[in-house]
């Protein structure tokens, strides 16, 4: 396949940035999207150009490091898929593909397609945990957990912290990410003691980071590679209200 790429290039936070066009030839349909960029980057290096910087690590959809807006959609059009899991067989020969970084004020661009997502870590710091120092835990079977609850908690816990939900949201809201963690922990008996204080602290931190509010557009869940459902946000809001009523 032969493709035309329009890629966002920005040398650093203070650079204004621009789209640059590249041609890539002989792309195999079995390549992953990132492998296609590797091939382009190898060529750029040999030509003495600065290769395109992008984040990635596991390349199997679990670390949450990769993320690009491809043809206007966070992680590309294929549903429930991270950028690194996207394969070229889903693109047409001769296509033009635009590639841009996540765009949201709390995720400033570091370089090219690399952004700073440390705000997510700070949201977790605010309360996304169960306070249980190592060595203090009771036997794992001392508290049975209903299978349904464990499964639902697991579903919410699969969030990989990629930030696509924020990039897709017209308000730049981090509600889906935050709600996923709150839901995970609030469905388990172990998460109950800190349930309300956790919801309050995490939501307040999310606001302090400058993420926008949720207006239920559903864009987040549409791009979420792990299919975190919108009702997590309702759950978060309910806990948040309860916490504030106290």
């Amino acid at each position, binding site marked *: 396949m032969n493709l035309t790429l329009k890629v966002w290039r920005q040398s650093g936070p203070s650079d204004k940035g621009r789209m640059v066009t590249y041609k890539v030839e002989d792309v195999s349909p079995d390549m992953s999207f990132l492998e296609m960029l590797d091939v382009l980057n190898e060529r750029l290096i040999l030509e003495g150009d600065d290769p395109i910087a992008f984040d990635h690590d596991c390349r199997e959809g679990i670390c949450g490091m990769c993320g690009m807006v491809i043809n206007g959609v966070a992680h590309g059009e294929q549903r429930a898929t991270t950028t690194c899991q996207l394969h070229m067989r889903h693109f047409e020969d001769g296509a033009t593909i635009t590639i841009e970084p996540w765009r949201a004020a709390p995720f400033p661009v570091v370089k090219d397609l690399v952004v700073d997502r440390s705000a997510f870590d700070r949201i*977790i710091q605010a309360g996304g945990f169960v306070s249980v120092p190592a060595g203090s*835990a009771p036997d794992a079977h001392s508290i049975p957990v209903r299978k349904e609850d464990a499964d639902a908690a697991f579903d919410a816990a699969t969030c990989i912290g990629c930030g696509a939900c924020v990039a897709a949201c017209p308000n730049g809201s981090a509600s889906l990410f935050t709600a996923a963690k709150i839901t995970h922990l609030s469905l*388990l008996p172990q998460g109950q003691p800190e349930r309300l204080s956790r919801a309050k602290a995490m939501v307040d931190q999310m606001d302090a980071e400058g993420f926008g509010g949720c207006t239920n557009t559903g864009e987040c869940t549409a791009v979420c590679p792990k299919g975190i459902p919108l009702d997590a946000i309702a759950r978060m809001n309910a806990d948040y209200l309860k916490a504030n009523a106290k």
Partner: protein
Amino acid sequence: MKYTEGPEIRDAKAPSGPIEERWEKRKFSAKLVNPANKRKLNVIVVGTGLAGGSAAATLGELGYNVKSFCYQDSPRRAHSIAAQGGINAAKNYRGDGDSIYRLFYDTVKGGDFRARESNVYRLAQVSVNIIDQAVAQGVPFAREYGGLLDTRSFGGAQVSRTFYARGQTGQQLLLGAYQALERQVAAGTVTMHTRHEMLDVIVSDGRARGVIVRDMVTGEIERHLADAVVLATGGYGNVFFLSTNAKGCNTTAIWRAHERGAYFANPCYTQIHPTCIPVSGEYQSKLTLMSESLRNDGRVWVPLRKNDTRAPGDIPDDERDYYLERIYPAFGNLVPRDIASRAAKNVCDEGRGVGPGGLGVYLDFRDAINRLGRDAVEKKYGNLFEMYERITGENPYDVPMRIYPAVHYTMGGLWVDYDLQSTIPGLFVIGEANFSDHGANRLGASALMQGLADGYFVLPTTIGDYLAAGPFGEVDEAAIAEAELKVRNKIDRLLSVNGTRTPDSFHRELGKLMWDYCGMERTEESLRKALERIPELREEFWQNVKVTGTAEELNQVLERAGRVADFFDLAELMCLDALVRTESCGGHFRAESQDADGEALRDDENFAHVSAWEWGADGPILHKEPLEYEYVKMTQRSYK
């Protein structure tokens, strides 16, 4: 490559006495640090995977002043996140005859009698606490309808002791550790440095006293000082270029510590995982593992006839060879990894492999789907099947998966004593980065167990014994400056070559060479060839590599080049270690040493030792640590 032999290592510092009491004894003899003093003691933890994340969190909880580093943009992204299948623990919740002793026994045997008994016993003991800890943190393990934890069986074991969270056990355990870590960041006991790459250890007055790191965003070279340094930087499987490891996994941290005096143990012990998606083309950037748990229900086979090009569904049962079930009736598809991998290689070498280039075997779920129903299979393995389809474009519910072995894990690593301390005082090494518990072959679901055992339970006790003598005072400025200069010089040198080949092109070539000559099967001839080729290729690298950009910016080409440079040096030591160890054991298969059935043949008389390599300016120095087995009788492993 020239090497010399130095004195044996006689004392790995494990307490004596009955094996069940040794860890208890050590915990009691370890000096305690007064709570008020802990705040004054600084500890650096490099790496935020299961080992480093759990260690930094726990040290923070204990009140030490901790600095934590990782190269990703968040500690939650460490490679541990990708572990799929599960974590072992001797809970015996099933009442199927499991016990601490049995897990100990299985691990020593699975490691082909090349691990220390004392360490392995402790690991089995601590395993039960890990599950308790994880559950209390909210790790959503799979459960049964009664609300209790579910388990599955894994290769090399006949009991069901593997706890799991669908196919994402590593992710869930790491998020537990990550959340504990972030709690300590909020509490002010841990300072987190993401996007920082460690490039050297500072050794002052014979003690590890800090690290030199590069801020990967600004390029700034920074010094960080402490009373002790913990390396939890993971394995070095990426020396093969293609492996199941994350792209950034590297040997830089442990290799540079090795150059500073930390012995490197058993570098040649690598694990080739039997169930990975085969290579599809030249551009391939990594390999994807299909969890070993699939072997619980999937059946491995190849056509009986050579070069059989029929579609798998058209091959009747009596023309299929379910070779693992045939050769190993007792364990069948659940034989340990090294055995399953080599068996796959053998049938492919016979010309019975399937798929492009004949480098693949089938992993078939037809019978499981008939027996359990498609729904049940989907519940258990749905996400793995999806992953497979995404990559290959084939649907495993209809056509059997094609799998082939790939590099997965490195049992070798920095040598540590029972306290997990390296040969540099004050430098501790945990998780996959050390060599300690798996001998020559790791059992499935035991890496997560070891990483968390080290981080939550072992290191926090043993490091206290060391730190009780601290704080250790001023760090020698000359030592810091020298380390800093060494780092800068290496970076400058990489940037100044300005040749005509990319770092990746060298890495690919090195990886191919390692796979061909020091991979699943090794011979004296192949290893000698590798030892000839590696220095030539390294020479070319330093003459002809091209690194674009500058040192003062985010520069991913420079990062890769630095890692490849270290892989060259490590590759050479791996081949030397493999050459010197003329026996076969576990994942190390020397073709010259096999029995009549083609199984690995150990040579206990000459090789029942750990090979610990000291770095020397005139070539490596080999120190042997003899291994003694008081509890598990050394036998030739048999899974028949």
